[in-house]
């Protein structure tokens, strides 16, 4: 039963959400969040029964998908309202986990915009209730930044359904996903952007194999997905045949905007870094202290920019401006990662294996570079800013209009 938030200003909306959470969130969850008890929160996150019940209740209220239209189980809020809801949920650690980002932030809006009535019925409600997990199947080993150069093939069968073959990569949480947002080439006789179709792939289909990809920090958030003679019914096509690139644009705009966080100006990673530096004595070094303060300034400025972006957006959709925040975020993440090690004794490079602070610092350092590559490299973001925000001339692929099959291979 969706919460009624019609006509509320942002402050009133915040109050309404807070009151609802007060009434509905299990008390032990609320207490763990408010006391900042990390162990209790981790235990809750691992307790499937509790989380499943909560995400169902949250989804039913419309708060998990506050930006979706009311008729699809959302609250019909603009970006600023969505941000307010996200803030309230974050305060109690009550929102959907990061692994649901692809589903809630990307798959949902894309299906809302492009889906058939039947697709909306099939996918949106389970997504809102936390019943389906999604992953994104866009990138390929041979088509990194140049997404549209993808070679995964979808061939139409006599009955109108499709057989898909190819390989995808950089697919977050693909090992746990129920469905995947898939782009595949359906007409190599057309130019590269014009022969792609977008599908909603059932990850349980025979022929889908997921292999985790180990990152430089030793963790495996991404997967490689191998597709071998995978049958996809035509009813799982999203948008029209060979017009998948337009559908993907919706997904990508959401992704750029969504990766850069919730609005709000307040203590962040740099504050924590300063606290740690005071503990280890690193704060006494004026050069290091100044670098931490530079990061502090950069983090607050990015927060202020995010606040403004949400305010500016109002009812508009996220656009190329998201690239500005993504670029700044990537730089900041790398800086904070390096600083994290520098405040540890000996730079954390040789430490007691049980020293959790040192381990976390090294992970922050090694992960720091990932954000400026995943979700579009910094070079690609600069192209987007230059071309779509500033209106500079595009540097076109010389084979952009050549049939895909006739392009030279690199």
């Amino acid at each position: 039963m969706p919460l009624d938030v019609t006509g509320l200003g942002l402050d009133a909306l915040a109050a309404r959400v807070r009151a609802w959470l007060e009434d509905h969130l299990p008390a032990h969850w609320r207490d763990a969040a408010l006391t900042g008890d990390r162990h209790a929160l981790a235990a809750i996150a691992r307790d499937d029964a509790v989380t499943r019940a909560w995400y169902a209740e949250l989804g039913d209220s419309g708060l998990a998908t506050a930006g979706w239209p009311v008729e699809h189980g959302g609250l019909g809020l603009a970006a600023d309202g969505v941000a307010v809801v996200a803030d309230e949920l974050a305060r109690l650690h009550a929102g959907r986990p990061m692994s649901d980002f692809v589903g809630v932030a990307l798959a949902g809006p894309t299906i809302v915009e492009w889906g058939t009535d039947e697709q909306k019925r099939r996918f949106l409600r389970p997504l809102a209730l936390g019943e389906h997990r999604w992953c994104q199947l866009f990138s390929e080993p041979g088509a990194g930044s140049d997404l549209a150069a993808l070679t995964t093939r979808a061939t139409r069968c006599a009955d109108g359904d499709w057989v898909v073959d190819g390989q995808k990569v950089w697919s977050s949480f693909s090992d746990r996903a129920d469905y995947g947002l898939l782009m595949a080439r359906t007409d190599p006789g057309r130019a590269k952007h014009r022969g792609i179709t977008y599908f909603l792939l059932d990850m349980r289909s025979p022929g889908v194999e997921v292999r985790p990809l180990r990152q430089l920090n030793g963790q495996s958030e991404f997967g490689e997905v191998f597709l071998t003679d995978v049958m996809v019914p035509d009813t799982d096509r999203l948008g029209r045949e060979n017009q998948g690139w337009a559908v993907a644009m919706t997904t990508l705009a959401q992704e750029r905007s969504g990766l850069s966080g919730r609005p709000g100006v307040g203590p962040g990673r740099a504050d924590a870094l300063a606290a740690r530096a005071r503990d280890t004595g690193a704060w006494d070094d004026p050069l290091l202290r100044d670098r931490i303060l530079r990061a502090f300034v950069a983090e607050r400025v990015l927060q202020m920019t995010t606040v403004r972006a949400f305010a500016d957006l109002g009812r508009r959709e996220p656009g190329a401006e998201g690239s500005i925040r993504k670029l700044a975020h990537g730089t900041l993440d790398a800086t904070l990662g390096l600083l994290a090690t520098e405040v540890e004794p000996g730079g954390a490079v040789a430490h007691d294996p049980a020293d959790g602070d040192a381990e976390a610092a090294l992970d922050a350092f090694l992960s720091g570079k990932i954000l400026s590559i995943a979700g579009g490299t910094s070079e690609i973001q600069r192209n987007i800013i230059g071309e779509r925000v500033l209106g500079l001339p595009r540097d076109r692929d010389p084979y952009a209009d050549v049939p895909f099959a006739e392009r030279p291979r690199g």
Partner: protein
Amino acid sequence: MSADPFRWTPEHEEFRAVLRKLTESRTPLACAPAPASADQRERELWRAWADELGLPGLVVPESHGGAGFSRLELAIAAEELGRAVAGGPLFASAVLATEALLATGPDAAAAEILPALAGGTSVAALAVVEESHRWAAADVRTRVGDGRLTGVKHAVLGAADADVLVVAAREDAGVSLFLVEPGTGVEIVPLAVLDPSRPAARVDLTGAPARRIGVAGEGWPAVERALEAGAVFLAAEQVGGSRALLDAAVEHANTRVQFGRPVGQFQGVKHRLADMAVRTELAAAAATWAAWQEPGTDTARLGAAVARAHCADAYLETALDAIGVHGGMAITWEHHAHRYLRRARADLAVLPGPAEQRRLLETMIGTGV
């Protein structure tokens, strides 16, 4: 903090449009005068700002002859003036000196001169810094004796044009503020400046008659309040300068052809412009956020310091980048780029700069603000 984020209103946008039209029509970028010959134009512009828009009294309460607006309107004015590297006494008189006066209460002596300042018929200058060039209460050595001031004030912005000086001086109770009029015991020695749009002078006080404003020994908080407002003003001004540079550089990149294509198509230029845009958008958000805070609060102090720390460095980098994009033409005297470069460098020193702001933030980081 309220969940309702700040939004510019239609009135704000209109104010901005009027200001831009007025400023651009008088100091268009394309035929901007060389700094040294800008005096006459700037005097005319100042009259127009005062008479048509009431800029000098923007943040002065209506009860003291001003318009009673907030720092948001001040930030709009700063941004538009910054676009044109406009000179004139707005920053020195209507921001620094006026804010210091307002912060004294305003007390009776301040209240007496505020209407003329707000109306732009009189201008003031704030004289604080001495030989050390540091904005620090401990470094104020100008002494008071028998109602007369003796000391030397360095790099006083707008001193030569000022009808009245607001001077920080030390008495037994601490640092106080005084009103001093040019004349007996006051010698104003113009200095050579990097940025000719912001003239500065040394003020030699040798027993200059002075009236104290505010409570004895409580002058420094008023200086700090002026510094907070000044930081917000400069940040917004620098956003305006950055935007003007970015616009002109984008225009150049779209039209200048080299190697058979517009130079903006080369990633070397395109990515540099993108970096300028990123820096400038971040600067704009920070300046606006800072202007949006209630003056004198913790978040205002934080916002001012953060905005000034980011915007000042961003502006200098953007001015240097712009020269890189324009290439050879930008290193000529006639091109607009060096006016921005001069302003950007000078801005680092006219108030406590990014390094000092970060030092200030040492006391705020990790405190929950």
